[in-house]
């Protein structure tokens, strides 16, 4: 990936971040903290050549699968899906309205959403089903799962991790959005999750960590994953909750949308200026 290309993708990130903000603002509800923390991850996947998709064909049988297991953040896929022709861009303006096909949480009625999500801890198990099925069909299809670190508290995640490793599901790529903040504060104060890398490695995953806001690093690390080592992959993306809006960054309260004053809306828009 050249520097120019990275610059383009960074520009794209600004577009996605701003678009998500405007959608949340217009709906006056949603989960900005974990939506904004995963922007560069999604841009790397869809515009950095990592995930295989087919423009205008959300149900193409050869597509890679994606599950945003932390379903409250799934809406950040909608602008990308509109951009790659899965549905009309006009739909984005209706987000949060009663007549909108785009829901607050992702579900399979929305073109591009491969699995309904919302309750934490299910995505990895469903992803094991996708990955296992692809292997049985000898299909070259990868399954990408974005987990929040909060999901590591759910026991079902570890049931699925055991399974993925035992069955050498190397077509399963998990991205852990490590923004450190859960609703009541820092994970390490609430109930420590570290050492995260060791935990996943001991479960048989190939683990890498990365600055989750550096597109160049994310793409390089994806490319570094050894594709023949028979292990499921885990990318720890170290991110900032609420990234891009200074008054939301690293703030647990940014988990939920709160109505914003005109001054704060102005400030956020200024910080989220899109490159011309």
């Amino acid at each position, binding site marked *: 990936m050249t520097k120019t290309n990275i610059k383009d993708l960074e520009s794209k990130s600004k577009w996605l971040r701003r678009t998500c903000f405007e959608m949340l603002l217009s709906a006056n509800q949603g989960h900005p903290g974990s939506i904004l923390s995963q922007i560069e991850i999604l841009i790397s996947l869809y515009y950095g050549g990592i995930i295989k998709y087919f423009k205008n064909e959300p149900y193409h049988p050869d597509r890679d699968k994606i599950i945003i297991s932390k379903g409250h953040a799934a809406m950040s896929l909608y602008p990308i899906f509109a951009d790659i022709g899965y549905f009309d861009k006009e739909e984005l303006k209706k987000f949060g309205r009663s007549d909108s096909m785009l829901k607050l949480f992702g579900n*399979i009625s929305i073109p591009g959403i491969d699995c309904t999500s919302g309750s934490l801890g299910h995505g990895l198990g469903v992803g094991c089903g996708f990955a296992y099925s692809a292997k049985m069909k000898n299909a070259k299809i990868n399954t990408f799962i974005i987990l929040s670190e909060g999901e590591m508290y759910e026991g079902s995640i570890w049931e699925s991790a055991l399974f993925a490793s035992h069955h050498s599901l190397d077509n399963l790529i998990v991205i852990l959005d490590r923004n450190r903040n859960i609703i009541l504060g820092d994970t390490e104060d609430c109930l420590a999750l570290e050492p995260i890398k060791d935990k996943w490695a001991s479960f048989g995953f190939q683990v890498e960590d990365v600055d989750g806001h550096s597109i160049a690093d994310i793409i390089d690390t994806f490319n570094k994953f050894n594709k023949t080592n028979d292990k499921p992959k885990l990318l720890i993306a170290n991110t900032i909750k609420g990234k891009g809006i200074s008054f939301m960054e690293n703030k647990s309260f940014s988990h939920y949308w709160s109505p914003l004053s005109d001054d704060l809306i102005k400030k956020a828009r200024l910080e989220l200026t899109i490159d011309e």
Partner: protein
Amino acid sequence: MSNFQRDIIIDEVYNYALKNKDVFFMSADFGAPALDKFRENLPDQFIHSGISEQHMIDMAAGLALDGNKVYVYAMAPFITLRCLEQIKCSLAMMSLPVTILGVGIGLGYADAGPTHYLNEDISVMNSIVNLDICSPSDESSLKFIAKQTIDIPKLRYIRMERNSLKNIYPNDYYFNKEGFEIIHKGKNICILSTGYMLHKAKEAGEKLLNDNIDVSIYDVINIKPLSNNLITEISKYEKIITIEEQTLNGGFGSIIINALFKNGISNRTVKCLGLKEKYYFQNGGREFLLNDSGLSSDSIYETVKNL
């Protein structure tokens, strides 16, 4: 092969899976002689999920979303209540073609104690949208249900016995599509039951007949969705009795009463027989515990006689 319910249905699924590579059978470390054959001959279509019912259900969703038909299999208490949220969020919300095979309903695992009894699955599973509840009472009705899972794949929960049940229907019996069968047609009084307890109802009915009390016996095979024609049919009776190996809150009897009221039928005498509102730690075996709860055929006979 044994005539245990689990072997009967696994054999049906095995024959189906032999010809269809998109059929998967998952077990949370629960076995059967028929499953040994499946594992041996179709290793790629058998998946051991570990003793991880939550993962098993989530993974079944992934397999089903990718176009496969999936059977998940475990002891009944653990494949229902333990992973209820997975059943709701991963299977029911996406309405996926997965068959949940729960073995050992009611007090079937006596004397293991209340962790291994499933006395509330009708109530709990009835609350899950997009899910059918099937309750076989013998080999033929189980085979009929197995065929439905193949012909019309959808989300179903099948309530299975730990062991075998005596035959009620002949091998070539034609089951109607209504989801209930009339075992005996009497007058004035009808008894509705399902599964193991249907046999108790039948025995009680035979004893009552000796006293010239001719009660109708209905086998409710599809508890959910419940046939409206069943309700129309039973509304012809003055007295309606339901029998279940469940605690009564929200159970089989509640479902029947709700359906009667929904159909504007509120002036019948309805008696719901079921387990006591307690956890059963007492030893003594299933029959002892049923007797203790007024659910032996003799107790049912007495209850109906004194109604």
